[in-house]
C-alpha cells in the first residue's frame, strides 16, 4: 500500500472508556466543525488485530489522535505496518481537547 498525503487519523476508542469523554467528543466536535479533512475510525486496537491494510496509509507528516504514543506505535507495528518517521501522535488520555486541537488546527483557526 502506498503512503498517501499527510492527514489526520482520529481513533474513537469505541470499545473502552479509557479516554475522557469530554476529550474524545470535544476533539471530534472541533474536527467536524473545522474545514480539515480527517479520517475517524472506531478503534485502532481492533484495526491492529485485523491487520487492517489501511493502517499502511498513514503518511509522514500525518497526525494520529489516539492514546499513548508507545501504544499507538506498537499497534501499527503489530499490524505489520510500522508508522513512518515524522508522524505526530496526540494523546487523548493525557491532554485536553483544546490542547490537542491547538496542535492540529492552523494557527488562528482554533475556536
Amino acid at each position, binding site marked *: 500500500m502506498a503512503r498517501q498525503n499527510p492527514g489526520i487519523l482520529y481513533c474513537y476508542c*469505541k470499545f473502552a472508556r479509557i479516554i475522557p469523554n469530554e476529550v474524545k467528543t470535544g476533539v*471530534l*466536535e472541533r*474536527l*467536524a466543525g473545522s474545514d480539515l*479533512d*480527517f479520517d475517524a*475510525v*472506531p478503534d485502532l486496537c481492533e484495526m491492529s488485530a485485523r491487520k487492517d491494510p489501511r493502517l499502511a496509509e498513514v503518511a509522514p507528516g500525518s497526525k494520529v489522535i489516539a492514546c499513548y504514543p508507545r501504544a499507538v506505535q506498537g499497534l501499527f507495528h503489530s499490524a505489520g505496518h510500522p508508522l513512518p518517521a515524522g508522524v505526530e501522535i496526540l494523546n487523548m488520555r493525557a491532554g485536553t481537547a483544546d490542547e490537542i486541537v491547538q496542535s492540529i488546527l492552523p494557527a488562528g483557526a482554533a475556536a
Partner: protein
Amino acid sequence: MTVTAQGSVPAGVIAALLEKGYRVAREAAAEPSVRVNGKAWPAPPGAGAAVAAEVDAYVRGDAPVPAAAWKPWFPVIDYKRCTNCMQCLSFCLFDVYGVSGTGQIEVRNQTNCKTDCPACSRVCPEVAIMFPKYRHGPINGDAVSADDVRREAMKVDISALLGGDIYSLLRDRSEKAKSRFSKERDDERALKERQNCLVTMGKALGVPAEVLASLPSVEEIQAKAEAARQRAEEARKLAGQS
C-alpha cells in the same frame, strides 16, 4: 435523513456511526463524500439509505438493541448440589458471584466471566458449578458420577489447608500484608525462602513455572482479600437474619 455534503455532518452523527462500527472519513475529494467502511457514500443508494435509517434511529433514540457482542460463557449453579459454602465467591477474581437477599450464593455478573475459563468449577467441592458450553462432563451439565464425587473429595480443601476460617485468615493477611511485604522486599532470606517454597511446591503439585509466575500484585491481593471478606461477612449477616 441523508448525509451528503462535506462539512455537513454533525459530530453527534459521526459518533453514532463510529459507535455502530462504521468508519467515517471526510476527504478532499472532487465530489464531497463521506466514506463508510471504506466506500464512498451514498453508494450504492440502497446501502446508503439503510445506514441513514440506522443513524436516524440512533438520533431518535429508538435504535434496535444491538445483537449480543459477547459469547455467553458463565457459571451456572446446580442448586440441588450447592451447599452455599462460598468458595466460588472467594475464589473468583472477577466478581462474577454475588449473594442474594436471602444469603444465597448466586451468579450475578455473568459478563465479567472470562470466556472459556472454567476454573471456579474446579474449586467447588460439590461439583455444583456448570459451564453449559464447556466441552467435558460433568462441568458441561452431564450427570455427576460417583467417580466425579470421589475426585472432588480428594481435592485440596482450601479452608482446611490454611487451618480453619478462610475469611479471618484473609482479613488477617490483608492487615499484615503491607508491612510484611515492605520489610521483606529487599531481604535475602525472604528470597531464599521463596525459592525453596517454589521448588517444593513445583515438585509436590507439579505446578508449572508459568502458573507460579501469574501471582497478582500485592495491591490486587489486598483489594481482593478485603472485598472477599466484606462480601462473606455480608453473606453471613444475611444468612443469620433468615
